Each structure stands twice: as C-alpha cells, then as structure tokens.
C-alpha cells in the first residue's frame, strides 16, 4: 500500500498517545523553540545540563501526531548524552527510531533534532 498521512507506524502512535518527558521545565538551563502556530507545528525543548551532559530534557509541542512523537523521541534519544553527542542526532535518526514517518510529514513535522540543536546553542551562548 502506498504510504499516506493516515498510516503512522506503531512507534509513532505509541509516542503520540504516551509522550515521554512532556511538559514545562521551570528551572531550565536552556530552551530551544522552532515553528509557527500558523503552520500548525511549534516545538519547544527545555534542557537541564550537568557536567556537559543532558541531565534532564522536556518538551512542549503544538502539532500533529508526527510532531508530538518526534518531540517525545528526541527527548529519549538525547537524555544522558553529552552535548556533543546530542548535537549529532539528526532528524533522520529521530524518524528512523520511530520506524519512519509518512513522506509528507518528513519535512514539516520532523524538526525535533533541529530544536534540540537550538537549545544546545542557546545553552552555550548563555553559559
């Protein structure tokens, strides 16, 4: 069957229904944000950094199932990594960890790794 928007992988649906590390972080060391409500997707990532490692990470997302699932997945992939390791995670890695995204969602909703990079950049800037 030709993949379409209404065929999400089991992994996407699972992360969408039970998002990990979701919510605001009050005492974050850095925040990254990307997107525009007019387009439908906005992601925000909060970091708590200790000894150059991501000690805690949280997200808030307005968006479709793919946007929410990729946000949730990036927090799992990044947690515990050093900043240098975390920076190397790509949007493609995120999509692959979720066993793929519908083609139409690959560009618009797959920006979690970019948001993480912005958060790390902001961390370094403010340090």
């Amino acid at each position, binding site marked *: 069957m030709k993949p379409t928007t209404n065929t999400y992988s089991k992994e996407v649906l699972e992360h*969408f229904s039970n998002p990990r590390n979701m919510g605001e972080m009050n005492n974050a060391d850095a925040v990254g944000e990307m997107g525009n409500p007019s387009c*439908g997707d906005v992601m925000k990532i909060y970091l708590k950094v200790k000894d150059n490692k991501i000690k805690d990470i949280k997200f808030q997302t*307005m968006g*479709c*199932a*793919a946007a929410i699932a990729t946000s949730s997945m990036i927090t799992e992939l990044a947690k515990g990594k050093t900043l240098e390791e975390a920076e190397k995670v790509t949007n493609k890695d995120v999509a692959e960890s979720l066993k793929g995204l519908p083609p139409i*969602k690959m560009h618009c909703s797959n920006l979690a790794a970019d948001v993480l990079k912005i958060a790390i950049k902001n961390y370094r800037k403010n340090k």
Partner: protein
Amino acid sequence: MEKIYLDNAATTYLAEEVKKEIASKFEVFGNPSSRHSFGKEARIEVENARDKLANFIGAKSDEIIFTSGATESNNFAIKGVALANPNKKQIIVSAIEHPSIIETCNAMKKQGYKIDIISVDNEGIVKVEELKKKIGKDTLLVSIMHANNEIGTIQPIEEIAKICRAKKVLFHVDAVQSFAKLPINVVSIGVDLLSISGHKINAMKGIGALYVRKGVKISPLINGGGQEDAMRGGTENVLGIVSIAKALDLKRNEFEVRNSRDRMIKEILKISGAQLDGSQSQRIYNNACFSFYGIEGESLQMLLDEEGILISTGSACSSNKLAGSHVLKAIGVNKFYLNGSIRISLDCLKVLTREEENYVVQKIKENVEKLSKISPFKFVEKEK
C-alpha cells in the same frame, strides 16, 4: 460501542432504502443508448430519475445533466460556459469556495481569464456590495456556493441571483452541501447553473448532476457518444442515477438535527479555549465547526478516532498540500486557533441519542485538555 460518524459533509453512508432500490435494479444492465429492449429498460430508469430530480429543484427534465459528481459539475459549469462564451474573460467567485471551484479558476487564470475573488465577513458571508461592484461587461460567470463545506455558512444566493440577473451575467451555485437539506428551487432563486452531488445525500459516490437553465450557452467537457443531449459523453451511470433519485425520498430530520447540533455547540463552547467558527444564525443545520486555542486539529482528530468519534479538521497538517484551511483564513481566524479546528457534520437521517451527544462532548473536552497540556501555548481566560 458503535463508532459515531460525524463527517457527513465529507460523505454519507448508503441509506437502507437506497441500497434496496439499487439492489432491485442490479439486473438492469443494458446500455441506455441501445435501441433494444434491455437498452430501453435502462433508459427508462435514467429518464425517470431525471424527471424526479428536475421536479425536486423546480427544473425541467432537459435541464439536468448527469455527471460523475460535483467536482465534474463545478468544472463543467465554469469551463463549459467559458468554452461556449469565448468573448467574456472574467470569473467572479468567493474566497471560501470548494477546491473544485478554486482550482478550476486557477486553471482558467492560466488560460488568460481574470479571476476576482470576493471576500467574506468574519461569519463567512459573501460581501455582496463588493461582488456587485466587480461585475462588468467582461463578466462571464459568478459562482457562489450555497452552504460552505467547512463552516456551513449559508450565502444569500437569492440576493446574488437578483444582482446577476439585473446585470445579465450567469450565476452558478455549488449546492453540494445544501442539496436535499435546504429547499432549493432554481426558478424562484433565479440561478442559471447548479451543482449537485449524490454521495453527500446518502446516495452513491461517482454520481452528480449539473442543472443548466434552458438558454444558457454551455459546451461539453467530455465528448463522446452523444449521451446527455451531447452535453456529457460516456455511458450513463445507471445505478448511480437510480441512487440519487431514491435519496430524494429520504426524510431528513431538520428540526431534531438542528437541536442536537445546538446542544452540542453550547456544551463544546464551555471548553477552555474553544470558539465557534462561522455564523451563529446563517449556518446549515447539520454543521458545527470549532477551533481550540494552541492545539492542532489532526492530533485531536486522531485521538477522537481512538475514542470512536469520526470528525474532520481544517488543520494544515491534515491536508495533502499542508496549507491551512483557506476558509478559516478568509474569515480571519486567529493564528493560535487556525490549525486547531474540527468540523462536526451530523447525519441528517438518524439523530444522535442524548447519550451519544454527551459522549462526544465529553471526549472532545478530555482530548482538547490532553493536547493543551502538551502544547507550549496555554489559553488564558480574559478577565471580564
């Protein structure tokens, strides 16, 4: 629990009466154009259906052309009239027309036509004065839908028809969402062309019609074996035609559907960050369209699907083109609400039970709250 289907503006199920009617004609397989007895048998079905449909909208039988559906009818109305009247090069439509009108106009634009798009107010009602001013000597056609497919707004088509008549320009109405739900008489409205669809009124998919007032010059888009008075080639979709005629007999419960819809609107508007999109009063009775602050509609649609509630959304993410609803943009919906819209379109034949209504409201509330928790944008109640 059985699923609750609230997407009747997208399509409807085949009504039992329609199923039975089609089943009773399965053996009628002749080609209506054949001169033998099997052909005649099929011809009778087609012409009886045509008479019935014509009568239903106050038209004459030879003013009805069967098509493959409303998209073809809308294409036919615009392109067919353009082909037959090559001296006029301006087309006027509203900002909230169905894609089958908008995209047809975009295609005409590439052919050198001037397309004027009339804006709507924040309820989605066409600005009639603006329309009046745009009509000129070069105007080929004005095309305005009767009821909008997303927000359900009903347009003042009688008033627009009068203007078009006075200015001697053709007037086409896309009546897909209103046909068989609201009374339509082509003569008393004064419309020149009118598009109709079968599958929105519990008939089959793949069948529609275009009413063309006698005297309107139009050329066929599909040339072929002379069917439909040489206006639309191709062997007639006999069972589809039978189904659309049968669907005219179905009893639609306007009063009860409207009450059910109104009760749900009242309850859903109590949800924090909810707003009703479109008009309070000028809205087709089976439609309700809401937006929720800071959340995205496709997510809400998926969560509701898991709860057994089937609705649609105007969110950018849900469309094939990833562009948000042009209708919601045209009525000026705020960007924090724009992608958080859902449309509820009720079944006009079978009314929801109170239990079902309450379930729908409760699940919408729960899932809007769930997504609001995930969202970085929190709705703050304005101090009154």
